[in-house]
C-alpha cells in the first residue's frame, strides 16, 4: 500500500500549482507514472489519456505563467468513469457494443471539471453500462481491489474507486444508480458521494436508469470529494431533470462538527445479513458521532426492505429502453446480416455481455403487456412508500446511518454465478436512489482481513453540506 498517497488534498495541489510552487505538468506526470507502474495489476483504467493530459497540464502552466485564471482545481488529476462522454476520446461503458465510438461532445460534468482546472488522466473501468456491483461485468476485464487484488473493487464505479485508492488520482467521477459510487468507495476505502437527484447534470452520462442515475465524486478524502462536487454541481439547461439550483458550498461548513445533529441508525439496514465486523464499525461510528455532540437514536424505515425488489424492476425497465438505441445503425458495433432486424438481433446478442442482457430481458418483461401493473407499476408505488417512510424518519432525524454494504469486498468470482445474491448486496444503497436523496460513504476502519469498511450517511434532499460535516467527523476519528 505504499503507493496510496492519501493526505494531500486537491485544494492543496491546486494551491501549489496556482502559486507556481509546482507545475501542473509535474503533478500530472507523477500520477501518470503511478498508473503506468501499477495499473497492469489493477486494471482500473480502460484508457489512459497521457498525451491529452500532459497537453492540458502544460496549458495550465502557461496560463499560470501568464497570470491568467486557472480555476480552483488547477492541475488536479481526475479519473473519468467510462460512461461519461468525452469529446474525441473513446467512451465505451466497458461494452463491446460501443467499440470505436468517439463522442462528439463532453458531458456537462466533464466540461465543468475542466473549467475548474482539473485534468482528465483517463477513462475508468466499470461494470458494463454500470450494471453490477463488482466491476466483473466489464468487456475489458475485472478491476482488482488495491487493498487485496484477489478481491473485487466493487461496482459499478470500481475503476474510479480503485484509481483513487491506488493514488492514481485524488478524485474520480462515478455514477450511482443503486449504489455504484458508494459501494466501490466502501470496498476500496475512499469517500464517495451520491448527490441529490438533479443536483448534478446527467447530460453526457450514458444512461442506465434515467430516473435513478446520478453523477458524483469519489475522493481520497471528504474534502476532496466535497471540492469536486462543488465544481460539478448546479443547474444545467440541457438536463430537464436538473434542479434550478446553484452548486452548494460544502467546504465552508465542512469542519463545523456535529454538535446537536440528530442521527438515526436505520434498524432495517443494520441487522440481519450484516457482517459482524461491519456491524461493529457502524456502532463505533455512531459512538464517535455521539462523542462529538450528536444525538444518536435508532429509527425504523420499514419500506426500505422492499427497495431491492422495486429497484430490480424499475432500473432494468428503464435500461431496456435506454439501451435499445445500441442497434448497429448509427455508431458502435454492427454484426452484418441479411436484413435489418437480423442485424439488430446479432449486433445486440454479440455486443452486450450476460448481465446487460439479463437486465434488458428483466426490464422488457416488467414493462410488457399484461405484466406492467404487477411489476413496473407496483414497483413505482413501492418507491412512493420508501420516500414516505424516509420523510417520516427525517422528521426526527437530520441524517441516518447505515453500513454502505453488508460486507467488505468479496473475492473475485465469488458471486458471479448467482445474480440474485449479487443484487441483494445493494440493499443498503438502493433506497436512497429510489427516493432521490443524497448519501455518502466514508471509510471507517477495517475488518479482520484488513479490508476497508464503509459507513453510509444518508440525508434528505439537498442535505449534502450536512452529510459532509458528519463525514468529516468520522474521517477525523476513525
Amino acid at each position, binding site marked *: 500500500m505504499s503507493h496510496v498517497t492519501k493526505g494531500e488534498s486537491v485544494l492543496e495541489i491546486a494551491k501549489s500549482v496556482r502559486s507556481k510552487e509546482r507545475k501542473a505538468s509535474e503533478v500530472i506526470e507523477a500520477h501518470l507514472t503511478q498508473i503506468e507502474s501499477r495499473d497492469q495489476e489493477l486494471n482500473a483504467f480502460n484508457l489512459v489519456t497521457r498525451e491529452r493530459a500532459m497537453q492540458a497540464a502544460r496549458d495550465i502552466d502557461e496560463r499560470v505563467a501568464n497570470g491568467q485564471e486557472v480555476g480552483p482545481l488547477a492541475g488536479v488529476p481526475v479519473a473519468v468513469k467510462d460512461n*461519461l*462522454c468525452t469529446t474525441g476520446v473513446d*467512451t465505451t*461503458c466497458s461494452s463491446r457494443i*460501443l467499440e470505436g*465510438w468517439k*463522442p*462528439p*461532445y463532453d*458531458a456537462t460534468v466533464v466540461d465543468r471539471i475542466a473549467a475548474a482546472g482539473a485534468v482528465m488522466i483517463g477513462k475508468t473501468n466499470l461494470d458494463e453500462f454500470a450494471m453490477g456491483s463488482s466491476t466483473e461485468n466489464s468487456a475489458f476485464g475485472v478491476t482488482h481491489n488495491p487493498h487485496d487484488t484477489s478481491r473485487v473493487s466493487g461496482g459499478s464505479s470500481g475503476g474510479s474507486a480503485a484509481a483513487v485508492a491506488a493514488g492514481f488520482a485524488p478524485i474520480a467521477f462515478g455514477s450511482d444508480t443503486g449504489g455504484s459510487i458508494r459501494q466501490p468507495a466502501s470496498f476500496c476505502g475512499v469517500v464517495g458521494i451520491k448527490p441529490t437527484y438533479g443536483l448534478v447534470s*446527467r*447530460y*453526457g*452520462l*450514458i*444512461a442506465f*436508469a*434515467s*430516473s435513478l442515475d446520478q453523477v458524483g465524486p469519489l475522493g481520497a478524502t471528504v474534502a476532496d470529494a466535497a471540492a469536486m462536487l462543488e465544481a460539478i454541481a448546479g443547474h444545467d*439547461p*440541457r*438536463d*430537464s*431533470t436538473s434542479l434550478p439550483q446553484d452548486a452548494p458550498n460544502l467546504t465552508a461548513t465542512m469542519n463545523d462538527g456535529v454538535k446537536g445533529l440528530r442521527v438515526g441508525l436505520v434498524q432495517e439496514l443494520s441487522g440481519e445479513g450484516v457482517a459482524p465486523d461491519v456491524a461493529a464499525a457502524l456502532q463505533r461510528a455512531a459512538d464517535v458521532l455521539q462523542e462529538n455532540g450528536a444525538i444518536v437514536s435508532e429509527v425504523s424505515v420499514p419500506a426500505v426492505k422492499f427497495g431491492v425488489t422495486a429497484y430490480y424492476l424499475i432500473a432494468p*425497465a*428503464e435500461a*431496456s*429502453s435506454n439501451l*435499445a*438505441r*445500441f*442497434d448497429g*445503425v*448509427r*455508431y458502435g458495433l454492427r454484426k452484418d446480416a441479411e436484413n*435489418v*432486424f437480423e442485424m*439488430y438481433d446479432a449486433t445486440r446478442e454479440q455486443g452486450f455481455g450476460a448481465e446487460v442482457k439479463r437486465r434488458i430481458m428483466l426490464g*422488457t418483461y416488467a*414493462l*410488457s*403487456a399484461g405484466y*406492467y401493473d404487477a411489476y*413496473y407499476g407496483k414497483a413505482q408505488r413501492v418507491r412512493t412508500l420508501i420516500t414516505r417512510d424516509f420523510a417520516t424518519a427525517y422528521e426526527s432525524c437530520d441524517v441516518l446511518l447505515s453500513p454502505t454494504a453488508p460486507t467488505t469486498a468479496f473475492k473475485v468470482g465469488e458471486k458471479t454465478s448467482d445474480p440474485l445474491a449479487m443484487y441483494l448486496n445493494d440493499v443498503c444503497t438502493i433506497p436512497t436512489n429510489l427516493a432521490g436523496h443524497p448519501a455518502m460513504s466514508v471509510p471507517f476502519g477495517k475488518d479482520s482481513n484488513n479490508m476497508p469498511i464503509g459507513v453510509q450517511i444518508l440525508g434528505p434532499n439537498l442535505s449534502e453540506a450536512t452529510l459532509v460535516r458528519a463525514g468529516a467527523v468520522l474521517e477525523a476519528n476513525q
Partner: protein
Amino acid sequence: MNAVETKTEWETVIGLEIHTELRTQTKLFCGCENNFGAEPNRNVCAVCLGLPGSLPVLNEHAVELAMRIGTALNCTIAPSVMSRKNYFYPDMPKDYQVSQYDLPINLDGSLALPDGSVVGIERAHLEEDTGKNTHVGGGGRIQNADYSLIDYNRAGIPLVEIVSRPDMRSAEQAKAYVSEVRAILVAIGASDGKMEEGSLRVDANVSVRRPGEPFGTRCEIKNVNSIRSLGRAIDYETRRQIELIEGGDSVQQQTRHWNEGEGRTHFGRIKSDADDYRYFPEPDLVPVVPDEAWKTRVANEMPMLPAARRDRLFEISPETHFDTVATVVDAGLDQLVLDVVKAGADARLAINRTANELVNDADAASAVGASTLAQTFQMETDGKLTATQAKTVLGELMALRGGDPQAIADKHGFEPVDTDALAKTVNEIVDAHPDELERLKGGEQKLMGFFVGKIMAATQGKADGKAVQALLRERL
C-alpha cells in the same frame, strides 16, 4: 358497385388520425432546425440522433401550439406526461418514440363541421416525428430493396396527433372534417397544412356495419396524400370490406396503403391490439402542467377560427356559396375582403372576384391593397368595366402588385359602356328576330343565350353580360 348504392344497406364508420408537423423554428427536443427540404442529415445533433448521453429538452413553442390546437378543438387542456413508445425501427434514432400515452395534453374535444354535424375528438397529443427511410434497388419498394438509407432530418420534428372518435359516416363527411381541421391548423399558425409534402398526414380507420349493429373490424388506411384521395380511399375500402363480408369472408384488422395511381388499397401489415409497445413515462422529461394563467394567455392569443371568419363573410353576403367563402378564408383573404367592402365595394362581387381571381397569390392581393381593389370592383359595379375587363384589370394589378385600375383600363381602351347605345343594339337585334322573341316569351330559356350571343357579337364582346340580360328581360 358505388358508394351511394351501398348506403341503403351498409354504413361506413370512419375515425381519423391526423398527424400534423408543427410550425416551430426548431425540433421538439433539440435546437436543430425544423425545415423541409434540407440535404439529408444536415439538421441533426446529438439529441435527435439519439447519441448516448444526450438528453431531450421540450420546446416551449411546440407545447403552446399543441395547446392552441386543443383550444381550437374544444379540448380540455390537461396535465400531461411524455411517455416512451418502444419498438425497433431504423428511422427511430433511440428505438423508442417519445409520445404521450395515458396523459395527453389535449383531451375530449369536438369539432362542428359546416354541415352542422359534430365530430368528437378523443385526444390531440404531442409527439416526435421519425426519420425517413429510402429503399435502394427493387424499384424503391421496401420488400424488394437491396438496402435502405436513412435521413434523420425529420427525426424529432414536433407533431400533434389528432385522434377523432369514430363519428364519421361518409367519405364526404371525412373530407369535410379534414378540410376543417386543416383550415384551423393553418389559421392558428400550427401547421402549413401541406398534405403533399407530408407535413399533414391522415390515417383513416374504416369499418362497415349494418346500421344499428356494433362496429365492424376496422382497417387503417395510410399513405393518403390529399383530401380527394382520402375520399377515394374511403369509398374503395368501404366497397372492399362490403364485398368481403357479402362474399362470406370477414374483415381482418390490418393496415392498408392507398395507391393513388391504381385507385386501390394494398395490404400493409396485420395490426393487433396486442402490439406491445411497453409504454412507460419518459424519465428524462418532466410533466407539463399548464396553469390557468398559461391556458388563458394561449386562449387570448388565439386568432379567429375559420368558422367565425366565414360567418363574417356570410353576414355581409348571405347568398354566397359555402365553397366560395371557404376559399377566401382558407387563402387568408377574408380580412382584405372586409376592408374592401368597408371601402365601398359590393360584398358579393368582392367575395366572388377574390375567390376566383386573387386566392392563388394572397401576398400579391394584399400588396395591391384594399382601396385599389375596392376601386376596381366599384368600376365594375358602375358599369365602367365589364366582368371580363375587370378580370383583366385585376390580373395586371396582381402581376404588378398594385397600380391604378383606371390607368390600366385606359391603356386597354376599356371604355365605359354606353347604356343608351347598348339598349339600341339590343332593340335592333330583338326586332330582327320576332320568332325567337316569341319562343323566349313562351318560356324557352335557351333562347336567352341566342340573343346574348348575337348582342355580344354585335358589340365585339365589349358589352357586359349582365347588362345585356337585364335589357333583354325588359323586352319580355
